[in-house]
């Protein structure tokens, strides 16, 4: 940003912040952070032209600007609307937004197969997080869901179109990283599907990145398929001397074994630096890498339970409601889960929790089971 760029004041959910002119509402909200930030399923700051499609980031503009204070008549996509000086925006404080977002989540799940138990993305899936945080607990559709057959995109990537939310991120990624338009959308409406032209394998050294930009389990890494659940693997940052890319990656390990290699992602789940296929698919030995240490994960997900940085503290009422546990992960699994045990204080574990932390005390687990049994 040049020094001349004027600063605009924008107020989001009663928090005022100054941002350079041209900043979108979403990015201004990201500066504030926490629950003030609208969820974004299609916008990706690294991909030009992305955003505007999924409609999860809708917000209410209750005051257009200082000059023209009229509110905007409709909810707007915060990822594609730039701030004006004196603008006032409502995200979580607007019942209209909450309601509309619930509708959007419902629509995104309408034809989703809900196959999380067999999906490799489960545990780091933005759609899981989204429906958990903004959706409702039941579904109102009684219709058969649209299905598509799976498709292999090249040797290492599998496409599950049934899980796709058509965010177009992979399309932008494939076009912008590879410079070729081979990956796109066929058909339209609820039969639109991601495909390659036509059934072509994508041969490009960087094409593996489409897996990382995909917010759901539609594009998955075949070398990791069904090998492990992400929450059993421990993410560590690592690097190697790579002739093709920066070589800065994240390894997902269990013990000494490298199960998966991905790019490093920032706290919005966006790739920091694209990595090449060689690093991603072929370097699966710990000895291939220089390990830097446990990754810090800021996103809300089971990998980072209660660990994310700069988290907004829960409102006390909510905490009381859910038996003194922190919200966000409030599925009622506490009674039977091996994961959420009272004697394990997740915030005391260095780095993200990982399966070993839960296995350590087998005795406690056993006793707990007895206790649960007795309660019944």
């Amino acid at each position, binding site marked *: 940003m040049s020094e001349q760029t004027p600063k605009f004041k924008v107020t989001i959910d009663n928090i005022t912040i100054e941002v350079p002119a041209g900043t979108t509402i979403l990015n201004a909200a990201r500066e504030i952070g926490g629950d003030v930030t609208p969820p974004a399923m299609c916008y990706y700051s690294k991909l030009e032209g992305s955003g505007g499609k999924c409609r999860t980031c809708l917000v209410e503009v209750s005051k257009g600007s200082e000059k023209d204070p009229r509110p905007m008549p409709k909810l707007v996509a915060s990822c594609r609307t730039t701030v004006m000086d004196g603008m006032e925006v409502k995200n979580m404080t607007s019942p209209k937004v909450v309601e*509309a977002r619930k509708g*959007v989540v419902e*629509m995104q799940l309408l034809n989703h197969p809900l196959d999380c138990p067999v999906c490799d993305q489960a545990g780091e899936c933005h759609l899981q997080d989204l429906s958990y945080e903004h959706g409702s607990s039941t579904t109102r559709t009684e219709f058969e869901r649209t299905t598509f057959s799976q498709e292999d995109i090249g040797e290492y990537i599998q496409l599950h179109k049934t899980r796709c939310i058509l965010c177009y991120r992979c399309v932008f990624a494939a076009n912008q990283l590879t410079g070729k338009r081979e990956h796109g959308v066929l058909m339209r409406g609820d039969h639109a599907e991601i495909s390659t032209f036509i059934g072509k394998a994508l041969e490009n050294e960087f094409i593996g990145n489409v897996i990382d930009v995909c917010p759901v389990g539609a594009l998955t890494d075949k070398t990791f398929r069904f090998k492990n659940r992400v929450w059993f693997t421990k993410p560590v940052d690592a690097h190697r001397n790579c002739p093709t890319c920066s070589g800065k990656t994240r390894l997902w390990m269990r013990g000494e074994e490298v199960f998966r290699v991905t790019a490093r992602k920032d706290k919005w789940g966006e790739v920091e630096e694209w990595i090449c296929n060689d690093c991603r698919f072929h370097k699966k030995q710990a000895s291939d890498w220089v390990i830097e240490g446990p990754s810090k994960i800021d996103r809300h997900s089971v990998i980072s339970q209660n660990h994310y940085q700069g988290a907004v503290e829960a409102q006390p009422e909510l905490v009381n409601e859910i038996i003194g546990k922190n919200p966000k992960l409030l599925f009622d699994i506490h009674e039977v889960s091996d994961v959420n045990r009272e004697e394990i204080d997740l915030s005391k574990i260095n780095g993200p929790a990982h399966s070993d932390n839960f296995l350590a005390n087998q005795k406690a687990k056993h006793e707990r089971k007895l206790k649960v049994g007795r309660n019944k």
Partner: protein
Amino acid sequence: MKLLLENAHIEGIRYYEIYRKHGGYRAAEKALKMAPDEIVEEVKKSGLRGRGGAGFPAGMKWSFLAKPEGVPRHLVCNADESEPGTFKDRYLMEFLPHLLIEGLLISSFALGSNLTFIYIRGEYAWIVDVLEQAIAEAKTNGWLGKNIQGTGFDCEIHVQRGAGAYICGEETALLESLEGKRGNPRIKPPFPAVQGLWLRPTVVNNVETLAAVVPIMNIGGEAYSKIGVGRSTGTKLISACGNINKPGVYEIEMNLSVEEFIYSDEYCSGIPKGKKLKACIPGGSSVPIVPANLLFKTAKGETRYMNYESLSDGGFATGTMMGSGGFIVLDEDQCVVRHTMTLARFYNHESCGQCSPCREGTGWMYKILKNIEYGKGKMSDIDLLWDIQGKIEGNTICPLGDAAAWPVAAAIRHFRDEFEWHVTHPEEAQTRNYGLAHYAEPLSTVTV
């Protein structure tokens, strides 16, 4: 008064010689002697509003066109006409191709477009030939090409066929399609007036809008603005269809009452077999349906006229919209549920699938409506439909989402009992192709 279709009946008016003999290209002669900005001023004065559906003032749209130094500008004529019930542009282009070409020439000159496009609905294949012939004739006679009539102004017009997608009628999807891409609507802003075709400033107007520039030049903006009423100036083409004695394209002055339009012999000539009027969709499939009792009189008891303001009087609660002028009449035997289902199927089929509420919601509404229509619905489905349409409306990228939501909302708003009848009479709903027969009973049984 007829301004557009005045000469439509003349034998051979499709050809240059005859068109010219009947006063054709006189408006162009006049316009080419004016300064481009003066033409824009005339169009502004005329009060002409876009005839493609939204009714946005054409002159204002033109004055928003960005004019950065050294960047070409374009005019694009939207001839995609795919809205169910709308077939006025087809008539105009088929019978009076030179009227459109003349309008395009004047508008291109006013806006400074040296390369102008007609994006035409793919199914109108034969009209492409008609237009191309007219373009060739206009070129031969010095109305297109280089240095038009010695003014130094160059203009080429290309006709581009669409490939059968309703969504490509939405102006930004149209531009994408014209660029050879998938016809997905763009996210606005930027608007086409700033970044349109190939990111250059572009004006997109409907066929009828651009054709109306010819009479505006002929009689002057001031005189044009005196025709009609209030902000509904000039004449409007209405394509009337459904249960009427004389379906077709009519040119009306916008101070005509809806009642007269349906029952007068000059226009639709009433409803066949003496049936009663049940409902009407006055502006193409996207606008809300209105029951007979709200069609001739507004909720305030005033006469309803065929114009932008009067048709939308009462908002969506008791009014509707002028839309594109696709006038669909339903008599007492028509089933509103079935009708709504058909429209829902259309929008489901035509959604581009970019944004989740429209992509998923349109299909969901169609499936529920199908259940209700075929006697498999539940009472709660009606409320669910209402809720779904509310989740789509206003939350999408382009107005197709709204267009899919409005017909469903209006049908439930005004004909809820008919939906309920389908739920409570599942057997009958399957064997009869209409809902509550003689529904019109409690409504007025108007005749002229």
